[in-house]
């Protein structure tokens, strides 16, 4: 390997590392509050399972669509819903109050009950990694 390539590779790998850190959902302060309340390691994989799960024909995807990076559509009113994926909608998860408001409403509609802290942490981890 040419020695001239080494600085270039270093730069690329540093940029890659930085991008991973930036995408790390554990940096989201709201996830820390779940951890403070006793939630174990959040799992994007479990969050994804919940995202695509269907209960009595209801699921997250009923309104948000299958791809969280796409614009959704309210199943009843047809109103468009901004994408849930953090990568395409970076302003989405700024307010803890707003996050909790929507979890409360939408978990009740989708699962007929409130979500557990673990489920919320998992879903949030999945969505912020998208």
């Amino acid at each position: 390997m040419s020695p001239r390539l080494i600085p270039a590779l270093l730069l690329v790998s540093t940029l890659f590392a930085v991008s991973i850190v930036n995408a790390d959902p554990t940096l989201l302060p709201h996830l820390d509050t779940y951890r403070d309340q006793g939630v174990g390691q959040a799992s994007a994989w479990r969050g994804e399972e919940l995202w695509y799960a269907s209960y009595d024909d209801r699921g997250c995807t009923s309104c948000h669509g299958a791809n969280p990076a796409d614009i959704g559509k309210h199943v009843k009113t047809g109103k468009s819903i901004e994408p849930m994926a953090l990568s395409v909608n970076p302003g989405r998860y700024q307010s803890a109050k707003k996050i909790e408001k929507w979890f409360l409403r939408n978990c009740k509609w989708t699962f007929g009950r409130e979500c557990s802290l673990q489920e919320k942490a998992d879903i949030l981890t999945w969505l912020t990694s998208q």
Partner: protein
Amino acid sequence: MNSKTTMAAGYVLMATILVFSFYGLGQSLASGGYESDNHDLDHEYHEENEHNGRPLAFSIDPVYLDECGSCHMAYPAMLLPAKSWSKIMAGLEDHFGESAELDAQTRQQIEDYLVLESERVSYRKLFRNLGDAAPLRITELPYFVHEHDEIPARLVADNDRVKSLSQCNACHRGAERGQFDEDDVVIPGFGRWDD
């Protein structure tokens, strides 16, 4: 009669015709230019409130717009009586089959706005034959039912771009600003509506 007199008479005649046509135009503009009693909700609602010495401007609360308008059109408060709004805001846990729960402070703030705004600008004709009822749905107002009873299902329920009469703004392009003038109705996939 010489040609000068003929020309002068012609001028007088033309001027008279012009004056009367302008007068007629002015009259027709002043009367709104139409007779129909259901033609312009917005127009009559303004007149009614002028008589009451109330402010005319349509106002929308930003908190209401943000909280309620994220799932559906933020229905102008004037479309329901104040006590309907209070009932709706007291039952957000089951809001037409969905949870629309809010924290206590925001809920109260929105209810206060809706009640005040409804009392301020309520369009009374909308509440004709309503009596003391406080329906939860605008589509249940007798006046609303009467106004929409000639529209065939294929244009609303069976129309994928409308689906329901609850979607005011699918056809009333000024709905979110409280404007329901029939002239402004465009039914998606069908065009202007004129009955």
